[in-house]
């Protein structure tokens, strides 16, 4: 062991504020696990962070091809993090296809680690690359580390008696080890995870530990890396944290809502990307009495949930755009019979099948208006993965309090993205009081609470409350079928007023940033991160900007119009063609401007900043279309 001594020069360790690192490779290369482990480790250390997984639409495209590329990005910092990062400090590319698909996002002079063993001619061909980028100087602007990842992993594991395939499966942990060295992180948390994960497969625990160690040592031993980094912990609110994705948080939120309400949770759902995980998560919570019903289609999914709500459960259904389109007739029924229901639409790229694995915010108008006739429904939207937990509670609260269906608009970015989430204690959760009618005295199915305008929840099986409900227009109070003209007008306005009354509980609007000034940004949903980051950056430059991020899209907060009046200009960035924009313009007659990006991926902070500067007359604007027109021609 000590026969020859290699002298390792003391290398620089730099303390920096934040870094963005992206692992990418073939779907079979385990990039999601690698990214999650790295995330977990930096989170445990106390950094703030945000992640963005980006996996292919295809189930499993042929190995090494472009459609097969999978990626995972982590942004971690010693201060607040709002987005996974516009561009990347360190890119780990396991094969040529991954390199090709991801290089554009690497910063100039950024660190690029590639697995040279997978840059053979055949690999290049599968990635439709003509000349080897490792040789043609196209990577000259980066700090390239061409590492024999496969070979070195095999060497490290040669004594374990694994076959070649199994050994090669560990090469992602070699890369992970390198990153741990690079950012001075302990491998302990990942050791713990491996031991838990492969409890009964000690050989795999060993193999992965060894591979990781080898990667770490490789950096330590070679002189390739002249510098490593240290990112101190962030100043986060004290408490217990966990990493959580939007879909997992939604599921937890519903379990919490059902527990707080003291009624069973029923999910009727039909699998669809990117909503399926809500079904998967909730189907595990049988110990909470959660009922999950995988229906024959989206219509049965929502109508079974309506049946469950009728029976006295918290009925919910989860889906994405195309499935949402199928549910709209049933939504109208829920409006007419005034039963509580929560519908989760995890938006994805469209129209039609569109871009199933990509994110978009283009179902807002569908949520607001996608039903026959006047059938208003409250709509809420979470602004971050962790916020999905709270939005589930808020939607359930509204549904039960007002006896209405409520739509939650999440999106693919929130659903799959994850962030550290401060775990609430039980008494931090809102109360969700439920009153089931039991008194037959004077009972009438559409007699209303004067404040919430809700009708009684009178579930089958309650003696003396036998009554009939249905989707035909009915007389108020009695619920009897009624075709009278004036009754219809009354009922239409009543249903609208009931939804409007939800605004009674919306807290006053307090913009982030400035309370009045030059520019107000109004937005909703998953754009919260990049907008907040841009807002902070621009305000540091002395600009007067406020930001209202709407959680309630219907009804809107009552004082929103007043807030708008306090600003000179209004900007509405959305991942659609201007849907909230239209609502705001119509309602407030304000000449708000849209900033619309519809590329299946979130805004970059820099894009928002650029747009802000343009609105403030400080810079020309390069819109995504301009980019596009340059690149795609026509």
């Amino acid at each position, binding site marked *: 062991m000590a026969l020859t001594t290699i002298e390792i020069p003391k290398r620089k360790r730099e303390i920096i504020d934040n870094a963005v690192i992206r692992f990418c490779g073939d779907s079979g290369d385990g990039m999601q696990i690698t990214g999650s482990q790295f995330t977990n480790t930096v989170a445990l250390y106390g950094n703030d962070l945000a992640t963005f997984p980006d996996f292919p639409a295809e189930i499993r495209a042929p190995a090494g091809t472009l459609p097969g590329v999978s990626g995972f990005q982590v942004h971690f910092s010693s201060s607040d993090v709002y987005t996974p990062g516009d561009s990347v400090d360190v890119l780990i590319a396991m094969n040529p296809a991954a390199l090709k698909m991801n290089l554009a996002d690497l910063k100039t002079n950024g660190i690029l680690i590639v697995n040279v063993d997978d840059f053979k001619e055949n690999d290049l061909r599968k990635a439709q690359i003509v000349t080897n980028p490792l040789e043609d100087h196209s990577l000259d602007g980066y700090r390239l580390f061409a590492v024999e990842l496969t070979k070195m992993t095999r060497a490290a594991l040669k004594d374990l008696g694994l076959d070649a395939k199994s050994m090669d499966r560990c090469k992602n942990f070699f890369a992970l080890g390198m990153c741990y060295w690079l950012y001075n992180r302990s491998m302990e948390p990942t050791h713990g995870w491996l031991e838990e994960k492969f409890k009964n497969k000690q050989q795999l625990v060993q193999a992965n530990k060894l591979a990781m160690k080898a990667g770490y040592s490789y950096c330590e031993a070679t002189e390739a890396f002249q510098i490593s980094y240290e990112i101190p912990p962030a100043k986060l609110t004290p408490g217990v944290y966990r990493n959580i994705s939007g879909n997992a948080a939604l599921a937890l939120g519903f379990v919490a809502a059902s527990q707080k309400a003291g009624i069973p949770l029923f999910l009727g759902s039909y699998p669809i990307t990117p909503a399926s995980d809500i079904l998967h998560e909730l189907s595990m919570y049988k110990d909470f009495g959660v009922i999950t019903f995988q229906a024959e289609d989206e219509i049965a999914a929502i109508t079974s949930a309506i049946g469950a709500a009728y*029976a006295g459960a918290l009925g919910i259904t989860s889906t994405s755009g195309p499935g949402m389109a199928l549910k709209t007739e049933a939504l109208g029924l829920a409006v007419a019979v005034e039963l509580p229901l929560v519908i989760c639409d995890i938006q994805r790229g469209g129209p039609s099948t569109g871009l199933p694995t990509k994110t978009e915010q283009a179902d807002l108008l569908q949520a607001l208006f996608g039903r026959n006739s006047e059938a208003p429904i409250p709509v809420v939207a979470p602004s971050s993965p962790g916020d999905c937990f709270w939005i589930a509670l808020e939607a359930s609260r509204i549904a039960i309090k007002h006896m209405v269906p409520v739509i939650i608009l999440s999106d693919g970015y929130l659903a799959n993205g994850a962030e550290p989430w401060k775990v609430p204690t039980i008494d931090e959760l809102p109360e969700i009081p439920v009153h089931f009618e039991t008194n037959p005295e004077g009972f009438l199915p559409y007699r209303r609470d004067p404040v919430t305008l809700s009708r009684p929840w009178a579930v089958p099986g309650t003696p003396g409350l036998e009554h009939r409900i249905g989707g035909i227009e009915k007389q108020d109070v009695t619920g009897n079928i009624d075709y009278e003209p004036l009754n219809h007008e009354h009922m239409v306005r009543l249903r609208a007023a009931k939804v409007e009354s939800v605004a009674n509980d919306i807290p006053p609007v307090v913009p982030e940033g400035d309370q009045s000034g030059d520019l107000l940004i109004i937005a909703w949903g998953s754009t919260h991160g990049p907008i907040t980051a841009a807002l902070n950056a621009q305000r540091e430059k002395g600009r007067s900007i406020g930001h209202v991020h709407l959680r309630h899209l219907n009804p809107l907060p009552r004082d929103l119009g007043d807030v708008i009046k306090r600003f000179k200009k209004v900007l509405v960035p959305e991942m659609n063609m201007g849907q909230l924009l239209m609502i705001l313009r119509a309602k407030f007659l304000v000449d708000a401007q849209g900033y619309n990006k519809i590329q299946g991926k979130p805004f970059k902070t820099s894009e928002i900043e650029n747009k802000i500067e343009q609105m403030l007359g400080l810079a020309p604007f390069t819109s995504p279309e301009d980019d596009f027109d340059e690149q795609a021609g026509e």
Partner: protein
Amino acid sequence: MTTATLPVYTKKDFQTDQEIRWCPGCGDYAILSAVQMVFADLGIPREKFVIISGIGCSSRFPYYINTFGFHTIHGRAPAVATGLKIVRPDLEVWVATGDGDSLSIGGNHTIHMLRRNVGLKVLLFNNKIYGLTKGQYSPTSEVGKKTKSTPFGTTDRPFNPISLAIGSEATFVARSVDVFQTHLKDTLKKAAAHKGSAYVEILQNCNIFNDGAWETVTEKEARSENIVQLEHGKPLIYGKNRDKGIRLNGLDLEVVQLGNGVTEKDLLVHDEKHPRAAYAFLLAHMEHRPGFPTPIGVFRSWDNVPRYEDLINDQIREVQAKRGKGDLAKLLRSGDTWELKA
């Protein structure tokens, strides 16, 4: 909630104050009356009954029965009822539906409810027409039928609701007729007693848009020649003089005349518990053949299959027995957590 003594009801207890809006003479009245009487007889507290319907003349049913009732949307009653029944397996959930509602737009929910064996009782009002929309053909209308939407005759082969149900693995399939009150009530009671999905086709006359569609079955003079009653354990005899029967011939059925050496003993003895669904299937297709009678009664009653709602709730109970009831605080803190100190 349940009292020690069983409630005693009369038909009246199941009537509502709502004006009945079916055409005078419609077969739906007879079905309504039969159901009200059967409900009164079952000795089940009234509040335990729920009737779920879709859209159609027949789907107005819930308004006229003084139980819980939910008039939903076209075709979706089985799905609404499934959600309800899973959450409340203790309720008696009946579905009222039409041939359009259940077999056209609602076909998918119907077959899935049956394969799952959800404990619902389904009343299929089969009048071979869309009544409420004023007379278009339905998936049970006979080929060549001239209707509002087919002035030159239909070209669609109809479903046989019984064989479709059997093909969907239904555990209880029966047929009765609006005007055969005793038979209808008997059949409904059998359906009520069945544990899983009970699918009951009721031949119903729409006297406005398809009058006489079931004439061969209901017409006083001819009916005994055109119907064979399926009675468990009894031979398939029919005819005014009970002189005809159905005999098995290999994998086929044949009509035989009793006498001349052919006796009751030669006839097929009905077995609603027959282990092969193909048996009921064979019976169901009989009526499509010239010279064969239409079978009514219980085609199949197979009680060995657990109810869907029980399986779901049992699974929950099992998990809770093993893991204990869920603890929310624990759940929220599950997974990889870390604590940041002040």
